[in-house]
Structure formats: C-alpha cells, structure tokens
C-alpha cells in the first residue's frame, strides 16, 4: 500500500476516501496532481492503467423509527446521485501501485478534467466514458463517440437509460424482459404470466 500522506499534504484540497482508498481530486487540480504524481521521484506514477466512469443514481431510503410514544415515524434519507471518473495509476519505473484518483461530478452536468494531456493511455478510455456516460472531459484532444454511432443520442451505460423496445419474439421471458415482451404479446397469452 502506497503512502498517500505526502500528496494530501502537498495538495490540501485533495480528499482521501478511506473506504475505497482513493484520492478525490477537485477538477481544477486534477491535471496538476496527475502531473506531480507522474514526475515526483518518490511516486513516478507513469502508467494510467484503468479509466472508468461510475454512475450512481440518487437513493431515497425510507427507514421507520419507533417513536417513544409508540408510533412509527418515517425518516427519509436522501443520497444524491453522482458521476465519477476513476483512474488507477501505477508506476512502471518503480513497479508499485495503484493510486486511485477519483473526479466526482454531478449527474446533471458531468464535466471533469481530462488527463489525456498527461497520460495518452487515457485517450480511448475517456472517449469511452464520454460515449457511454456522457461525461465531458475538458482538455481532451478528440472527444467523439467511440463505440456507438455518431447519431446516437443516449448514454447507454447510465443507470437510468431506457433501451429501445424490440422484444417482438421472446419465448423465454423473465423480469424486465417479460415486462417488455408482454406489451407485444397477443392478449390470449398474457394471462399465463400472471399465473406462473
């Protein structure tokens, strides 16, 4: 495990996420931190292995708490959704790692700083995160769709993506597929699904 204290000392706005052992880097500092990590002789994180976007929906959790007078009171805890980009950095020169860097942004307007100017290895993976999650990478040299076609409008890896309904023939449907297939079924057969 790499000692993260020097980074936190040098860049006070960088937070440490203890659960994931990750550094949460503000967007304004991201380039600077990455560059320092790459060039600092103690770290030499010259290799960006993995870049992944993570989408978290807002959660509304309802918990019932017994009041002293015997009645139940519902407490609603709201956790806002977020969009993250996670970088796993290793060092090929010193053969150590990883240091996990996260840039957290909002789901409504996801903008982060691209690390492609520092690590060219992030180029395609950032394009992929843009394509599938719609995360804008500022400073990316060539931010286009990479896996889907250019005319495509949606961001399919987002948790709230609704895919096109094309389940006309579905002989063995379950769960979500069943719900979609039912719309296409003739009336006679829908009753089975309720019975089964």
């Amino acid at each position, binding site marked *: 495990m790499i000692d993260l204290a020097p980074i936190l000392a040098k860049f006070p706005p960088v937070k440490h996420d203890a659960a994931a052992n990750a550094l949460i880097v503000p967007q304004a500092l991201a380039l600077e931190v990455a560059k320092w990590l790459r060039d600092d002789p103690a770290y030499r994180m010259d290799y960006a292995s993995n870049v992944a976007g993570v989408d978290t929906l807002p959660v509304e959790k309802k918990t019932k708490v017994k009041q002293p007078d015997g009645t139940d009171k519902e407490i609603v805890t709201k956790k806002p959704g977020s969009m993250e980009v996670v970088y796993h950095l290793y060092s090929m020169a010193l053969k150590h790692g990883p240091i996990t860097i996260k840039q957290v942004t909002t789901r409504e307007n996801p903008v982060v700083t691209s690390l492609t100017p520092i690590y060219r290895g992030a180029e395609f993976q950032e394009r992929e995160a843009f394509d599938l999650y719609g995360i804008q990478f500022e400073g990316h040299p060539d931010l286009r769709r990479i*896996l*889907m*076609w*250019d*005319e*495509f*409008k*949606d961001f*399919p890896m987002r948790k709230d*993506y609704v*895919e*096109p309904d*094309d*389940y*006309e*023939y579905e*002989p063995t449907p379950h769960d979500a*597929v069943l719900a979609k297939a039912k719309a*296409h*079924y*003739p009336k*006679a*057969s829908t*009753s*089975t*699904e309720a*019975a089964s």
Partner: protein
Amino acid sequence: MTLLPTNTSFAADEGLRSELQKAGVFVVSLEWVYNWGRKSSIWPLGFGIACCAIEMICTAAARFDLSRFGAEVFRPSPRQADLMIVAGTVTKKMAPQVIRLYNQMPEPKYVIAMGACAISGGPFKQGYNVLKGVDRFIPVDVHIPGCPPRPEALLHALMTLQRKIENQRTLGSDARRTNPAYRGENRECPIPEFGEHDLVPPYNPEVWKPHTIVREA
C-alpha cells in the same frame, strides 16, 4: 452422398432407371446435375465477426477440413461468394454493413446464421447495441445453435444447406415461383439508417415476421 435424384421433378420411371443403371447408363435430370454442381462448390464469404469466426477458421483448417465439402474457397469479396456465414454477434452498428454485403452477393445466395448471437442475439440479446438476430434484416437459410457451435456443427449446417440446394427448383416453369433466387432480379434488402436511439427501421417487415408463442393458461 446419394446419387439418386431427390427432386420431385424427375419423371423417369424408377424401374426403368434401375434397369438402365445395371447396364451402366445413368439417367439424371439436367437440374440434378446443375444442383449437384452448385451444392458441391459453395463458396463462402470470408467474413468473421466474433467468436464463431474462430471456430469457422478451425473448420476450414486441416483437422476438420471444409474442403471435403467443396466449400473451402473463402472469398474476400462478396461479389464472388455464394454463401454468407454470419459468424458472430451482429451489432446494430455492424448491421448496415452486413446487409450491404448481402446485397452485394450475386444470386443464388444463401445465409447461414452461425451461433446463438447471429440467430437471436444469443446471450447478448439484452444489450442495447445488439441486433436480436440477423434474420430481422436478411433471410436466413440455416441456423446453427451453440455458443460457439463445434466445427462439426458447421459441417452439419453445410450439409443441411446442401440438402436444401439439392431440392431446389432451378430449371423449369415453376422455378421462378418456388425459388426466390431464380426470379431474375437480385434480392436486395433495404439498409437501415442509424437513428437517435435505434436503427431505423428496427427490422425489415418483408423478412421478419415475429412468431407468437401462445402459452396456455
């Protein structure tokens, strides 16, 4: 391989023919000879998409040897191919290209959907970019289930196709009616456009007729 014609069109008397055979005279119809030639030299399009393509290569290699069936001549160009083996998952992004290749093939042309993905989208059918079966856009003659099918399964499919070719009408008055390949025009399927959410249209209504499964209550 049977030398006897299985065509219904062949009108020669069964007894007479066997008598002639004893004398060393073999009587077959011109159509049978034509079909025999066609089925013994099916040239596939060298067109691999995904995992099944590797099994297709194995089938063509020495151990399974597709050339025993006269089908080892993988043509890189669709203009010279008779058979398209759709070996792998056809994604929505790839679908227009697959259909274009099909359109470029000369008649008579055949399609084998190799593997679960090509038939129905297979294990990936729930994916947003996966076409749920190549038969939504182009007519498919033989389906091979399996993921991926063994090389022998591809050989079996090829034999199934050969049987189909054997029994097709190619000459005579009703060939045009019964055999779509001999209608005189090249069958072309419309190429879908990339839409904002899906392919437009999502399937070709002339080719794809969804089957309904009636489940009793």
